[in-house]
């Protein structure tokens, strides 16, 4: 009789298995004529949902503009259609969604995924099916170093952020005749922080700086005074930081509390670039240098207008991530115009041949989008901003490279 129980249990389970699997919808929807489908895998829920939301808004704004201007002329005025998939910042969800977008939604191009950990495995799926994948932002170097033919990245990669931070230190110490010898590194102990700090150590060694402190901390911490004590004791000239939102504020305030004297503080975007940072850290944040991809005061035609429009529609300023997502849509439009076909290989080739230097999408800080043989945008560059109050309250002012510096502003260096 136990056998019977077993059979029965097996049956009931199997019956349900099969019943459910068979009822799954099977037939993919046929794409309507004259539509180019762009699949977007971004974190719409979970810990990175706010960034995902910004990316979604920026994409929608760009696609609305493109479609209003007549769509893709070389494809008979085909309209762009956005299809979204939520990755929840989880790699396995991103992979599943990529499969679905490619096989069921039949998208022509994919974009995403912001989280580097989602972008790695997801681009591998696109590569396997030969679907072009445009990555607006996912900074890990590795993404364009997998030997994939179908993956293109707009944003600057990890190693460029750190490279530019060191160029900045060198340029500033020359410009203001201040000697910089000792560096301290303090960073959150996640993927991002450790990746950047690893590069810092190499660059510092190559440039002959002395690293007096190399200190990771968990970004969920509620007390950073031990870390700050260490910074104070090690007497660095420059403190370099990688922080998420809450810990950026805590670190800045604790540094002010302990009156740590430094020639400069340099942060790496993230928490220091968050709009809430200036509000919460207030005066303690003054004179901080932060590296970003884009700032609202960037000196490019159309940038101010695009920001105004975005702010009106979505109630926020554009961010570096949003600008890259916005630009991604215009890069796709440009490639489609030249490809004049929905054949994935033709689109891929057109993306590889991209030489975009004008149009509404080009509101980034650099002049041209060109992908190298690995698919990395060669021209992507970064800017340094300084947080200062020059009569309008604390604001972020572009200071580096010198060509992009806000007219009439002299950076405060070293920190008084």
């Amino acid at each position, binding site marked *: 009789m136990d056998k019977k129980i077993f059979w029965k249990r*097996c049956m009931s389970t199997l019956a349900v298995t099969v019943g459910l699997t068979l009822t799954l919808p099977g037939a993919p929807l046929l794409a309507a004529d004259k539509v180019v489908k762009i699949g977007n895998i971004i974190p719409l829920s979970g810990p990175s949902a706010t960034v995902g939301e910004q990316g979604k808004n920026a994409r929608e704004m760009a696609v609305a503009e493109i479609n209003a201007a007549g769509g893709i002329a070389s494809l008979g005025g085909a309209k762009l259609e956005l299809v979204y998939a*939520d990755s929840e910042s989880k790699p396995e969800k991103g992979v599943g969604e990529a499969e679905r977008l490619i096989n069921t939604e039949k998208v022509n191009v994919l974009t995403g995924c912001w989280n580097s950990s989602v972008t790695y495995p997801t681009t591998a799926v696109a590569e396997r099916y030969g679907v072009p994948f445009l990555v607006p932002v996912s900074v890990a170097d590795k993404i364009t170093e997998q030997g994939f033919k179908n993956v293109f990245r707009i944003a600057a990669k990890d190693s460029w952020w750190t490279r530019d931070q060191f160029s900045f230190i060198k340029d500033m110490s020359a410009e203001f005749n201040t000697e910089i010898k000792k560096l301290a590194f303090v960073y959150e102990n996640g993927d991002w922080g450790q990746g950047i700090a690893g590069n810092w150590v190499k660059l510092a060694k190559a440039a002959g700086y002395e690293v007096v402190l190399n200190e990771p901390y968990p970004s969920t911490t509620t007390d950073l005074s031990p870390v700050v004590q260490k910074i104070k004791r090690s007497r660095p000239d420059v403190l370099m930081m990688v922080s998420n939102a809450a810990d950026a504020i805590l670190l800045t305030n604790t540094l002010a509390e302990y009156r740590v004297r430094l020639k400069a503080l340099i942060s790496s975007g993230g928490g220091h670039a968050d709009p809430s940072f200036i509000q919460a850290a207030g005066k303690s944040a003054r004179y901080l240098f932060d590296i970003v991809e884009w700032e609202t005061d960037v000196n490019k035609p159309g940038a101010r207008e695009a920001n105004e429009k975005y702010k009106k529609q979505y109630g926020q300023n554009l961010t570096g991530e949003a600008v890259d997502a916005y630009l991604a849509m215009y890069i796709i439009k440009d490639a489609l115009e030249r490809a004049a076909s929905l054949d994935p290989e033709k689109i891929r080739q057109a993306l590889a041949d991209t030489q975009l230097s004008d149009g509404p999408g080009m509101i980034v800080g650099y002049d041209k989008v060109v992908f190298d043989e690995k698919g990395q945008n060669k021209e992507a560059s970064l800017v340094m901003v300084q947080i200062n109050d020059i009569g309008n309250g604390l604001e972020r002012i572009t200071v580096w490279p010198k060509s992009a510096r806000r007219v009439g502003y002299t950076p405060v260096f070293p920190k008084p």
Partner: protein
Amino acid sequence: MTGNETLAPLDNSSGSNAGPLSVSGSKVTDQGVNPRKKFETISLAALLLIAFGLPLVMRSPTYLHIVILIYFYAYLTSSWNMVGGFAGVLPLGHSVFIGVGAYTSTILSLQYGISPWIGMLVGGVLSMGIGVLIGLPTFKMRGAYFALATIAFAEGMRVMVENLDFLGPFNLNGPRGLQIPPLNFGFLNFMFKGKEPYYYIILIMLIGVLVLTWIISRSKLGYYLNAGGEEPEAAMALGVNVARAKLIAMAMSSFLTALAGTFYAQFSLFIHPKSIISLDLSFEIAFIALIGGRGSIAGPLLGALLLRPVSDFSRIYFGDVFPGLHLVIFGVILILVMIYQPRGIQEPLTRAYNRFIDRLSKEEQAKEVS
């Protein structure tokens, strides 16, 4: 002990509700005829045939992917069930074993070129050792304390892996995780271009774990576990070595869970601490077990069959319209099931199934009489 037929060890309920399965089971024996057995043999064979033939019909990799994940979670939950269901404790850190399995096989194959199939077994054994080590001190704890201890251990492991680039000669690559380059396809490398091989591997693993669960449920160990979970004092007074039975269950459970870790690594070709040793994953396993029915053979499978599609399809259809809604739907289902079916959905389903079978056997009897 084994002779006590009505004490179904899998139904972790108290006294009066000693399991609808065993009650109706004896009904059939009373009737003397066996239409049930005949029916069940036939339909089981048919279902196995359908399960094995599914990839031939379901050509879309999208849905095959979803089904593979359903089986994967069903497998994980069934492995968890040996401790979390039978032994009556609530382990909430099983992602540790998934992590051990995934990292062991991946490191062995990336650094030493050892086939993941071998790495799978090594990971399983390693994970078994860790499982026993956790079990030794923690099984003495009761209720929430055991759950908390397992959570703490899992989180500790995650933080450790996130902060270690190297563990001795082994490259863990810290928080950046490990990526398996999709280069060497083939059975020996546990890497395939299509989804079908993965489907069959996880299907066979799932059937294996279900059969094992069934064997345990009928064995002395199953009764020991059940007794120890229900009334540890009474069981110990009768001479049952409760702690030892739980340890054996933990060893099996951690071994099997680690195998799933290797499967996951080879299926997604990318592992990192936040996705594989996360509390989210541990909790999801527990949720599936609670919804499906803890301590029953079918429970984990039913739970996975209900929750995974709900989570996937609500994400697909609502993910962009109303971000986060799918998580709300997931939560609401969880609450509803907990309120109306605290013993999981396996209970009403088995009842309905039994009614159907009874009617069937009655008809058959009537036919014989006429």
